[in-house]
């Protein structure tokens, strides 16, 4: 038995990822040969492992694009599932390089928790879903209702604020995970299920009778969700940020995974050339290869393609673009110029 001690000690030293001295995040990632991405423990459409254990989803797709930009291999990324409670410390301690897990950009998180939100990959807002038979058509009619919320999220605070502002009372039923919340809601243990509208829609799509449920028109909060990195490594923040912008700009400029190779050989739009690395040497400024953005787009497609493949209206999640359309289409997506 005593010899079993050794097992732990040496399984141990094997697993020790190594002591990271004053290395930049990019150097660490390069040395490791893969990106470590903090993901959801399981949110349909945004990030969840499939039957083969391969992670799929919108946030997951962003991490794959980032891995492709760095390594030219969308699979050079490992996913660490994080709960809403463990996510920020995992990022702060260096356990993950980037957090792509439906995380709302707020003042306290950005400033007090020393995180850097690099942008928004999904503009969301908190909404309410009720069974149609309840006969409610507005959130203002919810006085005295029982409300299912996921704990540890901003929705909990928004909910308290909304009911307080409108002078209504409610009975919170805090739940640990999204799956649990849906279960409670479907069983009728709460009248209302509140979370981000995107998550409401994806839940409703999976219900046995989606039409029996109504998402109320009120959106009570702004929930800009986006990738997060540690504070203090500006180069790394730039890489993550501009990978996101590259995906967004690619959609605006009509670069898709299908035509990216063709456009690389020549395009009459100079900005396309700068994004794809045929001109300007932008990749080198980030410390990457010049075709970094082309690789990211080739791997997962542009923002629109990624959206359509994971959460768009052709998928079971069935989300409309809404606020997440390009600014030219009346949405909020607006990538700064590649110049």
């Amino acid at each position, binding site marked *: 038995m005593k010899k079993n001690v050794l097992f732990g000690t040496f399984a141990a030293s094997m697993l020790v990822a190594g002591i990271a001295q004053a290395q930049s995040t990019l150097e660490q990632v390069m040395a490791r040969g893969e990106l470590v991405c903090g993901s959801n423990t399981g949110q349909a459409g945004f990030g969840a492992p499939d039957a083969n254990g391969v992670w799929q989803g919108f946030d997951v797709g962003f991490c794959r694009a980032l891995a492709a930009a760095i390594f030219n291999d969308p699979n050079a990324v490992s996913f660490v599932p994080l709960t809403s*409670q463990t996510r920020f410390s995992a990022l702060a301690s260096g356990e993950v390089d980037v957090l792509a897990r439906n995380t709302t950009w707020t003042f*306290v998180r950005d400033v007090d928790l020393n995180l850097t939100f690099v942008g928004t990959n999904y503009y969301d807002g908190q909404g309410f879903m009720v069974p149609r038979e309840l006969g409610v058509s507005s959130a203002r009619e919810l006085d*005295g209702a029982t409300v299912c919320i996921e*704990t*540890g999220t901003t929705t909990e605070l928004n*909910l*308290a604020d909304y009911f307080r502002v409108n002078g209504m009372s409610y*009975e919170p039923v805090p739940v640990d995970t999204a799956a649990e919340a849906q279960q409670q809601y479907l069983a*009728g*243990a709460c009248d209302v299920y509140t979370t981000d509208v995107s998550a409401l829609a994806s839940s409703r799509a999976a219900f046995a009778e989606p039409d029996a449920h109504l998402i109320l028109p009120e959106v009570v909060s702004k929930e800009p969700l986006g990738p997060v990195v540690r504070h203090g490594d500006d180069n790394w923040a730039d890489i993550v940020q501009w990978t996101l912008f590259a995906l967004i700009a690619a959609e605006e400029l009509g670069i898709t995974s299908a035509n990216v190779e063709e456009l690389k050989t020549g395009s009459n739009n100079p900005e396309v050339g700068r994004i794809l690395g045929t001109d300007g040497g932008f990749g080198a400024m980030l410390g990457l290869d010049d075709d970094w953005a082309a690789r990211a787009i080739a791997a997962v497609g542009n923002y629109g393609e990624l959206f359509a493949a994971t959460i768009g209206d052709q998928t079971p999640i069935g989300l409309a673009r809404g606020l997440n359309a390009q600014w030219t289409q009346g949405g909020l997506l607006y990538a700064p110029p590649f110049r």
Partner: protein
Amino acid sequence: MWPRTRLGQPTGYIMSITNDQRVATAAPQKPAFHPSMLLYDQRYRSITIQIFALFLLMLGAAWLIDNVVNNLRLLGRTFSFNFLWQSAGYDINQRPIEYDSTMTHGRAALVGFLNTIILAILGCALATVIGVIAGVLRLSKNWLVSRLVTFYVEIFRNIPTLIWILIFGAVMAESMPAPSAFRGDNASSSMIFDAIAVTNRGIYIPSIQFQTELGVLPIGPFAPSLNWILILAVIIAGIFANKQLIAHANRLQSETGIRPKTWWKSILLLLLPVGVILVALGAYLDYPELRGFNFTGGLHLRNSFLAMWLGLSLYTGAFIAEIVRGGILAVSKGQTEAAFALGLQPGKTMRLVILPQAMRVIVPPLISQYLNLTKNTSLGLAVGYMDLRSTLGGITINQTGRELEGMLLLMAVYLVISLTISGLMNVYNSRVKLKER
């Protein structure tokens, strides 16, 4: 709990004999101190080892503290409990004391703490009841009953408590009727005795309310109602008076051999004052009533609470059943026979002979089961029970990002609770302990 054995002493004893002999035969004066004695002389070696251990411990502690300081500096944070005084911003459904989302994180933690205590006390009580009944029934001659209880004990002992809590949560939510089923003239569900409503949001029972409120007693953050304090005081006084009465009856019996009838006096002492005070305060029952989305009024036992309470109690009850069974079996049969030989009736045999001896075997493991149950209340978040770990250790840490301070505080509180329980129980344990002479 265990008799102290004397490890280490004997060897020292032998060494000292050899030393003494050498002293006696070789030289009359003490041998001069030599540094190697620090290692080889039993008298000094323990001091050397302890100093070495102290040194290592301090080194380790210094290393840890240094790391914490460095890490906090790198993260640009300070170690402070100030977050406890910031406004919490979240609501808690089960509030033993007044609380709303504008109050502080500290207040939210206090609410969670009280919820933990409530669950722990009620859980221990129910687990004991279940455990004693199941333990006795498992020894029953009734084949079916003893098999059923064995089934209960084995299935609950061998499946993790977290799974049981989740299952009870699901049973409550999935198989009970929704409040809307109680609505209308030909409702599909109805309240039990028109007083208790079992819904998929929990169980609503009538609560006692008063027409005359005496106000509250402000002690720090708590504000217990004076009405309840008064009732509690009257009950305690009644129990005390009853004890005096019994003692008096016992004295009379041992002096004269005749025991005065006390049962009606006991009932009078225990019930009458409480009844009087309840009438005086205008107590009435507040029945739950379907209004709007939910039942209002009465006392609401939420799903989360019921799932935790039943899950923990049935799980721990299975262990207590085994302890009780073992305790009863441990009392030798001769004790029963001796009691019968003395002419004691079966009931008295159990009460005066078997149980006091069985208790001695039962209490120590029972304490550790109570401790386990109390610690397992920290699983509350799985079903959304707002205990200390869900408020302070969950939402507060999450909203403020103060995981170091929050976790340390959380551990400290649990440690104090655990030590209090084991301390209280050890006092009891030493009282019932067999006085070995």
